[in-house]
């Protein structure tokens, strides 16, 4: 994942990305070390932190583009491309393993989905997560910001289909 060498030109989308980033940066101006809150804000609005955002962030924070790129890629939360219409995160940490998280992962595979990827129709992105803090009521799954406990494969199926 190397960075483009040229300065971004301002095509139509770039303008909106740029304005989103500038607005986010302005909203957090005066805060100490505000890069993470700004990245969260950009992702909340655009669904990801696109490549076009990097030079604008570099300008706002007076850092090199390599520095910004390094931060964005370090954290699991920040995406380079938007996720599917819904995002389902399955806990794969020990306590959920003890309660059968592997059965949920098998169900994902059997449904033709791949962890870490978005389904071909763009409907759902399935990801792994390490602990949602619901370890006594696992296996735990988070779908579109909502936490589910004691998830069975059948229930996961309903979550993936969007019926729960």
């Amino acid at each position: 994942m190397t960075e483009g060498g040229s300065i971004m030109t301002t095509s139509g989308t770039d303008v909106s990305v740029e304005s989103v980033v500038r607005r986010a940066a302005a909203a957090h101006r005066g805060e100490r070390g505000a890069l993470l809150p700004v990245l969260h804000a950009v992702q909340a609005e655009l669904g990801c932190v696109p490549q076009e955002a990097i030079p604008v962030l570099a300008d706002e924070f007076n850092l090199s583009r390599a520095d910004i790129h390094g931060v964005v890629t370090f954290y699991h939360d920040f995406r380079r491309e938007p996720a599917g219409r819904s995002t389902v995160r399955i806990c794969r940490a020990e306590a959920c393993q003890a309660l059968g998280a592997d059965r949920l992962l098998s169900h994902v595979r059997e449904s033709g989905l791949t962890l870490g990827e978005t389904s071909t129709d763009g409907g759902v992105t399935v990801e792994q997560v390490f602990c949602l803090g619901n370890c006594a009521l696992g296996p735990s799954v988070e779908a579109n910001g909502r936490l589910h406990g004691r998830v069975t494969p059948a229930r996961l199926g309903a979550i993936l289909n969007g019926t729960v």
Partner: protein
Amino acid sequence: MTSENTTRNTATVYVPRDAAARSVGADEVAQQLELAPIEGGFGVDVVRNGSRGLLWLEPLVEVVTPEGRIGYGPVTPEDVPGLLAAGMLDGADHPLRLGPVDQLPWLARQNRVTFARVGVTDPLSPEDYEAHGGLQGLRAALEMEPADVVTEVTDSGLRGRGGAGFPAGIKWKTVLDCADELKFICCNADEGDSGTFADRMVMEGDPFLLIEGMTIAAHAVGAREGYLYIRSEYPDAIATMNTAIDIARGRGWLGAGILGSSLDFDLHIRVGAGAYICGEETSMLESLEGKRGMVRAKPPIPAIEGLFGRPTVVNNVLTLTTVPVVLADGAKAYQDLGVGRSRGTQVFQLAGNIKRGGIVETAFGITLRELIEDYGGGTLSGRPARAVQVGGPLGAYLPEARFDLPMDYEALAEAGAMLGHGGVVVFDDTVDMAAQARFAMEFCAEESCGKCTPCRVGSVRGVEVIDRIVAGEQQDENLALLEDLCELMTDGSLCAMGGLTPMPVRSALAHFADDFVGRGDRRLLEIHPVQRGNTRTEGQA
């Protein structure tokens, strides 16, 4: 609901707002209760409390009656009409009735100090907070000189609850003794360990307590700014803390001249971005500064050069939420609880394959067996418990033969284990311990910050070596190689991520060697690491 009851016309019902309770339907239950047609002219006043920590009973609904708060649980939305018809609002009998919640043996046997208010009060009611002893610690502290507050915390014997168990008072004294104008209080609410959820529950269930604890710390060391670093996996805790901070500012519990004193202190929330290593304190500081969460070499310690190079207190949520009690009741009262050098209470979190999972706060010294069998009721599957991981993903796996170990820092260290953040994760006899050891290495490979080779590369090699052992390839040589690798990681890693990953691996080998060389179920080995495309080495160029 009967017409004889003339003393009230509104029934107060508690339904937890805790994320765990919500994960099994608490919102729907609350909604059902709010919408339910009530006979006899009663209205239902639904209060969203924190969770009492009896998680297998969630959603646990409590009704206020002259006999006290009567519990029903676990309640599904479908149960609500029947419960109302049976007279739940009067505390009437029903198969789901649990009796007075305070008297449930599971709760009555505990010694709740830090968790005293969690589940009892409305977390976002400042009136409730004060009515239940809130602010007593801060008020007492504000009457004292900073150095005396530090002494009180030192004398209580309170040790850091985040994992390392370092005495809180000594850390605070170092920061107090620094002459800098600008100092920080940072609360570590990253809680990345599997099997731990106490930080989350206290933030959701008693947020003012954390604000009070951080404010006391600020007074004690001379800080005026605080940061609360919460992991992004905890949206409910983030929302609750945000609201609580706003309320606290409005009441003069934060800001300039706190409670009419000369103390100025304000508090900001920072949200993590999905990186386990950001729970390590120096990595957290880097992240707070807007950088990649790369671990810093120590010294300098954060107490002297922490956030933005300033003297900084970094403490875990449970450490800081215990401070108000220490100040309110005095060091002696806290010190009197516990065993040896493990003073006070510990908040154990029972998780994994366990019948009754949840929060057990009790004095140090309780045994694993008491936790798992007496409190936990054994496994959820009903099969024998085979292994327990204590202290998170970097903690040891212990076999049944070790269940009589007393839970305190020193006894666990002697047994080659650690208490960590107090998580206890139970596995039944279907567990494949080679797969668990492999996972420990895989987790380290995935979550390593990438700064040092033993951790970054060693963990990847660890996965491969375990795969070869399990596949029966040159088992003796590969076992020796794994042992070498563990030694290298232990001795050569900069932080405990690489340094402690060998603990689950070696303990699995020591106690469950059979699983590595030809027993057990190989299912987990089929699940290969997921390539995320954002590996840590990438940004290093």
